[in-house]
């Protein structure tokens, strides 16, 4: 204890006071690490809030159910409810239906409608009327007694200004219906689904409104007592074909996995800022360790052990980590407000619909960011602390010049770096856990470490060559080259920071460009068409509801000289992997559009597909299920078994899982009477004809259809794409800003560390201008080397991102395309910004008067 007290006292006197005395530098480093920690924390908290909202909705909808009865690709027969209720092992069986609807007055504010049987549902889900008087509490009776009545969630009623007794028009696939608000429910239990933005209706009302008579989405079961797996299996065996028994968390697990993959990618990207911030801590702690060598030898001479010296500098790192995190948390609470809307919007658009109402500062997330921030800072201080440990007590008696670093160390580091780089590809090929690109990220880390370890050796050779190639004629150039040659790990670390930031920049530029170009090809070919028509709310409800037969007939009877390509979609599962089975008349489709093929011969596959001789699967489906060409695709839709050979793999970028395409006639042959879930029209881009078509559809089908032009649809897909990557761009810019701070700190440190050398140069006849040019040349060396290596590293990284991490995270890859224009434009810009970041260091040149050379004894 006494030892600890003594150490803490020494730490205060030796380290903290020193940091306070040089608070400008300390604050710069603190700003960098705090910014990194704040970005990391706020990104995690934002995605967590979306995840919590999703989980909350799923849990509240699931209620106390032990098992659920589901039918993949269709509805569960309602008659099954009565049969299940008679089963002695079950205490309750409650049908549930759910869909998204929208008010006619405000089409942008869609919300969830849940259909239940208020009596059967009571044992499974709780919900309370908002007003506690008797009339309000009997509102559920109104749901059953009167058609077209609803109970509104508290938030929704508040947002839309609904009052009890008010009539409201709601729209769905079958057109608008006037509902009466019978009451409002509190945010407890079922009322808290999607943060209270829902309506609850009676099951019969739901079925009449959506036209799904005689079927339900699922039946939730509550066992009378604890049932074993065998008993559940017996129950499952009695279910009709196409109907299955599942655990209630199935949808939650699939949705959570998708959002988690997104969170991991954002977390890794936001961690880049923290990682780059690590270099700042290194620079300052290294400066303190090097510039205070004499003081350290005094401490050693007076009895301080090697461990104490090590602990002093590790302590400095820890102080930066703890203070950085402390500053980061309030910054995060501001930052997260801006991120929350963007992240929840992206999650809703791409994965699962979420309604984030409030932000929870999760202790686990705060703990994670604390541990990571401190760990990163301590790790950054490790090497300088080890160097400090090496100070011998006898050094107090000598005033030797700093030893130059010898090449052996640089060679050893380079050998280790090459080892890391060689391990990148084999590691990237290791299959990771589903949805978690762990090998990909480890390979990325190895890539960064490999390049960073190569930096000292590369700089040494760069400096040596530059000094020989004409450098001797110009003193600043020659001296800068020599310094870079011999500066060893110190400058290599700052170059490592720059490599990291530039590599991320370069890789993301390539990845986003490749992704966008591939998506552009995909939307122009696979999303080809001039007008897309589907039942109201079809998109948000995953095209689950077929068009009304009358509307299908009306479309068939149109005679406007356009090609009609209808589709039928089923949302299915292969094991636990969700996917869409989409059928359309492929011969007609191929006349106007195409798939984006991966390998194989499209010329031979297209006719076979159009003849219904097989299916094509998206690479997401292929990757997640392990199925590919030569194997068979099988599925159960209702009581029908589907089975086709897989002919080819195509690219597809819908985010709700994979897709399987089959010819519509082939599907209809197996599932007779299958309806349409939407139609696309090809009118050769003839705008008047498209407008005439639109008017004809409105005349024939009224307000029951949503219509969007092909151009609008494709533009909206690309807009979603751009908005998704807006967050990425912001995170990247922050990482670059932290890297610029790193350059400022490192060069300042290099200048301060060499005050004596610079003054010597002045005493030997060097001009101020020469010395400033020398520092600027050093900066140019470091920046150019960092940028060049960063670009090289970035190309490798882009390969990993496109072919490994995206594949492991989302199951897709893209066609590799380099945005040479953006890189050519940004490369000199980054060099310029990095050199600007070097300017503050020039201000420190010769700040100490040259005469100090003679007083410094």
């Amino acid at each position, binding site marked *: 204890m006494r030892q600890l007290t003594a150490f803490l006292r020494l730490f205060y006197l030796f380290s903290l006071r020193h940091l306070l005395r040089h608070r400008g530098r300390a604050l710069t480093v603190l700003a960098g690490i705090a910014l990194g920690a704040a970005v990391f924390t706020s990104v995690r908290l934002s995605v967590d809030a979306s995840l919590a909202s999703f989980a909350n909705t799923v849990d509240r909808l699931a209620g106390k159910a032990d098992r659920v009865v589901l039918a993949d690709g269709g509805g569960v027969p309602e008659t099954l409810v009565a049969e299940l209720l008679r089963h002695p092992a079950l205490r309750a069986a409650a049908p549930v239906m759910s869909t998204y609807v929208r008010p006619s007055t405000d089409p942008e504010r869609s919300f969830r409608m849940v259909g239940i049987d208020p009596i059967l549902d009571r044992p499974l889900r709780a919900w309370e009327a908002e007003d506690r008087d008797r009339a309000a509490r009997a509102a559920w009776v109104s749901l059953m007694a009167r058609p077209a009545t609803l109970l509104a969630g508290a938030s929704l009623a508040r947002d839309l200004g609904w009052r009890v007794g008010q009539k409201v028009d709601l729209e769905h696939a079958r057109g608008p219906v006037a509902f009466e608000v019978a009451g409002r429910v509190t945010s407890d239990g079922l009322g808290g689904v999607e943060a209270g933005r829902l309506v609850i209706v009676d099951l019969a009302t739901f079925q009449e409104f959506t036209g799904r008579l005689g079927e339900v989405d699922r039946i939730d079961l509550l066992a009378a007592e604890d049932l074993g797996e065998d008993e559940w299996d017996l129950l499952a065996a009695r279910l009709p074909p196409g109907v299955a028994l599942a655990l209630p968390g199935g949808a939650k697990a699939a949705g959570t996995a998708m959002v988690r993959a997104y969170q991991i990618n954002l977390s890794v990207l936001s961690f880049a800022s923290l990682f780059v911030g690590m270099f700042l801590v290194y620079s300052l702690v290294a400066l303190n360790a090097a510039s205070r060598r004499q003081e350290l030898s005094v401490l050693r001479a007076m009895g301080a052990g090697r461990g104490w010296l090590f602990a002093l500098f590790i302590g400095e790192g820890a102080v930066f980590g703890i203070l950085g995190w402390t500053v980061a948390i309030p910054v995060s609470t501001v930052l997260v407000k801006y991120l929350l809307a963007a992240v929840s919007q992206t999650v809703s658009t791409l994965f699962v619909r979420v309604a984030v109402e409030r932000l929870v500062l999760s202790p686990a997330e705060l703990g994670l960011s604390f541990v990571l921030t401190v760990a990163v800072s301590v790790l950054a201080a490790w090497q300088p602390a080890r160097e400090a440990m090496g100070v011998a007590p006898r050094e107090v008696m000598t005033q030797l010049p700093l030893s*130059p670093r010898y090449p052996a160390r640089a060679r050893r580091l380079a050998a280790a770096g090459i080892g890391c780089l060689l391990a990148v590809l084999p590691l990237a090929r290791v299959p990771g856990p589903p949805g978690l690109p762990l090998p990909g990220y480890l390979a990325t880390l190895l890539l960064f470490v490999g390049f960073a370890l190569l930096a000292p050796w590369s700089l040494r050779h760069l400096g040596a060559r530059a000094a020989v190639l004409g450098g001797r004629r110009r003193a600043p150039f020659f001296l800068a080259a*020599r310094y870079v040659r011999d500066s060893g790990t110190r400058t290599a670390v700052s170059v490592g920071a720059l490599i990291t930031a530039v590599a991320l920049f370069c890789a993301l530029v390539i990845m986003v460009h490749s992704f966008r170009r591939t998506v552009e090809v995909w939307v122009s070919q696979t999303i080809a068409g001039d007008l897309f028509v589907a039942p109201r709310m079809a998109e948000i409800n995953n095209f689950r509801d077929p068009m009304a037969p009358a509307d299908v007939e009306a479309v068939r009877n149109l005679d406007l000289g356009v090609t009609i390509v209808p589709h039928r979609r089923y949302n299915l599962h292969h094991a636990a992997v969700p996917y869409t089975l989409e059928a359309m008349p492929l011969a007609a489709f191929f006349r106007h559009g195409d798939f984006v093929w991966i390998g194989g011969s499209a010329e031979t596959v297209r006719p076979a597909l159009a003849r219904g001789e097989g299916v094509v699967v998206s690479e997401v489906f292929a990757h997640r299920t392990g199925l590919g060409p030569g194997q068979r695709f099988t599925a159960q839709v209702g009581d029908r078994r589907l089975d086709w050979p897989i002919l080819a793999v195509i690219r597809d970028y819908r985010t709700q899982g994979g897709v399987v395409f089959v010819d519509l006639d082939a599907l209809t042959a197996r599932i007779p009477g299958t309806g349409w879930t939407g139609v696309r029209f090809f009118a050769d881009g003839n705008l008047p004809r498209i407008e005439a078509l639109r008017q004809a559809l409105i005349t024939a089908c009224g307000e029951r259809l949503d219509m969007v032009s092909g151009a609008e649809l494709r533009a909206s897909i690309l807009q979603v794409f751009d908005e998704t990557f807006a967050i990425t761009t912001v995170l990247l810019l922050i990482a670059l800003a932290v890297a610029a701070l790193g350059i400022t700190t490192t060069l300042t440190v290099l200048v301060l560390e060499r005050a004596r050398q610079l003054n010597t140069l002045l005493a030997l006849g*060097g001009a101020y201008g*020469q010395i400033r040019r020398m520092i600027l040349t050093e900066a140019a060396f470091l920046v150019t080397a960092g940028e060049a290596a960063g670009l090289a590293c970035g190309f490798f990284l882009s390969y990993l991102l496109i072919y490994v991490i995206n594949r492991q995270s989302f199951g897709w890859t893209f066609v590799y395309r380099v945005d040479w224009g953006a890189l050519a434009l940004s490369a000199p810009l980054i060099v310029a910004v990095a050199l600007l970041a070097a300017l503050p260091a020039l201000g420190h040149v010769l700040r100490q*008067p040259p*005469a100090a050379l003679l007083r410094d004894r």
Partner: protein
Amino acid sequence: MTGTPIIEARALTRVYRLGDTPVTALAGVDLAVAPGALVVLKGVSGSGKSTLLSLLAGLDRPSAGSLVVAGRDLGAAGEAELTLFRRQVVGMVFQNFNLLPTLDVLDNVCLPALLAARPRGPARRRAEELLAWMGLAHRQRHFPAQLSGGEMQRTAIARALINDPQIILADEPTGNLDSRNGRAVVALLADLNRRWGRTVIIATHSTIADRVATREICLADGAIRDGSCAS
């Protein structure tokens, strides 16, 4: 004294500020040094030796008074003139050697010539001559960390001579050396004073250079004291 002095100071004063407190390091020093003299500047720590030396070297500017060295008025000189002065007129030798650790012996010696943008070939040949004279011909490609203290100081002296300066200013040149190496360094400085006619000023608080000095100046409390420091 005969002829024009190479160093002439009148009422030379240098005042530093330590926080709000002015500290007078030199207080109205009058000094004239003849060309070819070997002056030993003596005095205890804080007497003003280093301050006077830094003014003579053009590393610092006087607060008051005048200082003319080799015909250049250092009090009135601009930054560029001072830089040229340091390149052409003086060569500095430091107690701590101040060799650049990233340059080998030959490059360290050539450094002032490089800064002065002199042609590389002649500078290199001159450096090799100087190193040979210093007994360091075999050490040309060694780095400072591989040299002994005496070798480092001889390298520093060679460096001070590379631009052929009129004046050599040495600040405690033997301070970090053992007595044998210290004597060798003093002998070298005396040699280049006698054989090559350089003006040499050695600031020291030891007696090691007394026997080679043509003149001894004693500083105390920022002023030149009459008579010998020993008294």
